[in-house]
């Protein structure tokens, strides 16, 4: 019996279908970012236009007859975008009579990686547009992802995006910065790590300034190397302090080959293993939401209460406020 998950926290409207932990469908429609970035209302309009078709396609691909549960991204994300996913989920839940589950977006990225590799207690580097955090499961007061360290200002993804726009690169910012960086030479840049926390604005400001005088390629290279080294160092510190045995990276920026290489080298130097999910689960997707909704549905004591206020959206939903009630 299948669970459907709807994701719409940013520019992707994604619908996934999962059955007993297997992904049967993972369909996405993506808003093309303009040079000015992402305007929430416009993206929400786009999502609204495509929601019905994406849901139908996912259900058809999965070939399921009955929907057992429906999940949607409650947050964190952009209000108008989240709203479209939430409303679509409510409608789908009413039509099918299946119970509805609100899911934390960040936890879903991490959980699908943990699920794919069957890991019990990994140390997590969660890197997306708006966020960058070092996470791990803690049992008290209830099982949840504790934040060991995180960015004090912007997420690494948004930082790279801002730079890419200033450097007039083509959309798909992160990967265009990586392409530009190839063969660059290193210029010293501000490197700010505070224990397991870090900040990116000083680095970004410096890189923007250098764009005017320096070689574009060298600036992109140095920016990327500095930012990823900071993330790696903070992760390494957390790894040794917590003593966890595995490291995973998840979220949009975990698609970066350079970041993966660095984390792999770091983990190996301490005899730990490094894992990362296939790209389709690190970019925003509905399958991860479906997977977590299925786990919530199966977990004891998680039968949803039918109360409208439980099914809202939370633009600033923190990962530590989302309980993990399964193994």
């Amino acid at each position: 019996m299948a669970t459907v998950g709807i994701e719409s926290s940013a520019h992707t409207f994604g619908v996934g279908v999962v059955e007993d932990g297997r992904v049967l469908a993972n369909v996405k429609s993506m808003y093309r970012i303009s040079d000015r970035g992402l305007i929430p209302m416009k993206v929400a309009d786009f999502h609204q236009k495509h929601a019905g078709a994406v849901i139908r396609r996912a259900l058809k691909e999965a070939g399921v007859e009955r929907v057992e549960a429906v999940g949607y991204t409650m947050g964190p994300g952009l209000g108008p975008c989240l709203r479209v996913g939430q409303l679509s989920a409510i409608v789908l839940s009413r039509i099918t009579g299946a119970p509805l589950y609100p899911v934390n977006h960040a936890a879903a990225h991490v959980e699908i990686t943990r699920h794919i590799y069957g890991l019990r207690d990994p140390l997590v580097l969660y890197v997306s547009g708006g966020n960058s955090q070092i996470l791990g499961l803690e049992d008290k007061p209830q099982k949840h992802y504790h934040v060991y360290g995180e960015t004090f200002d912007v997420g690494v993804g948004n930082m790279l995006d801002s730079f890419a726009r200033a450097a007039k690169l083509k959309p798909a910012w992160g990967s265009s910065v990586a392409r530009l960086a190839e063969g660059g030479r290193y210029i010293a840049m501000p490197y700010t790590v505070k224990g397991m926390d870090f900040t990116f604005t000083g680095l970004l400001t410096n890189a923007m300034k250098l764009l005017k005088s320096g070689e574009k390629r060298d600036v992109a290279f140095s920016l990327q190397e500095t930012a990823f080294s900071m993330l790696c160092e903070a992760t390494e510190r957390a790894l040794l302090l917590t003593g966890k045995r595995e490291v995973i990276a998840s979220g949009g920026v975990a698609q970066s080959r350079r970041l993966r290489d660095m984390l792999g080298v770091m983990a190996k130097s301490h005899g730990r293993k490094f894992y990362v999910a296939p790209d389709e689960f690190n970019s925003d997707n509905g399958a991860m939401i479906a997977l977590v909704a299925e786990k919530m549905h199966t977990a004891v004591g998680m039968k949803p209460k039918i109360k409208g206020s439980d099914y809202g959206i939370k633009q600033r939903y923190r990962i530590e406020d989302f309980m993990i009630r399964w193994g």
Partner: protein
Amino acid sequence: MRKISEGAEAVIYAARMLGRNVIVKERVAKGYRIKELDEQLRRQRTKTEAKIQSTLYEKGVRVPGVILVGKYFVVMERVQGKTLNRMAGVGKAHDRRSMGMAMAEAGRVLGTIHRLGVSHGDFTTANIMQDRSGRLWVIDFGLAAFTNSEEEMALDVLLMKRSVDSGMYERFIKSYKLGFGGKASAVLGRLGEIEKRGRYQTRTLDSA
């Protein structure tokens, strides 16, 4: 020389030198970073750490005295004791009382360090050591900086706020103000602003 611990950026060896117990803190190369960045970071942190620790030592702050500085290593006095994070979390009333006293002392020391124009950069209970006679030592200045920035100082306070419960934090902050003097209120104002940026609101650990 005997390896006693391995942190994220350095390997620590215990040794005897000139009849004294010392540690050798060596910053090892990190294979994940490009060579230029790696060497620059290790060189600069080694230098800054030694310089800051010597300055604080001279001003009477209880930090391990620096004996020798190399390109990527520092030899310093060895403090025999336990870090506060190993003391924390033991539920007995007696432990809580001595932890409270230690936190008050830690607040005063951080206030003094800030007054002397230094930020620590990783001020958690893992970097405060209590020796056998109960005296506190601040260790690991690898991420420290000479600065008068209220933001940097507020981040030191924030790290401590997050690693202890609210009762302990109150004692810490009360003596921090005494140690720092007048400028403490500006730092605490800045701390409020950082917290309001919305990232830190639910991160205090009340059970740890």
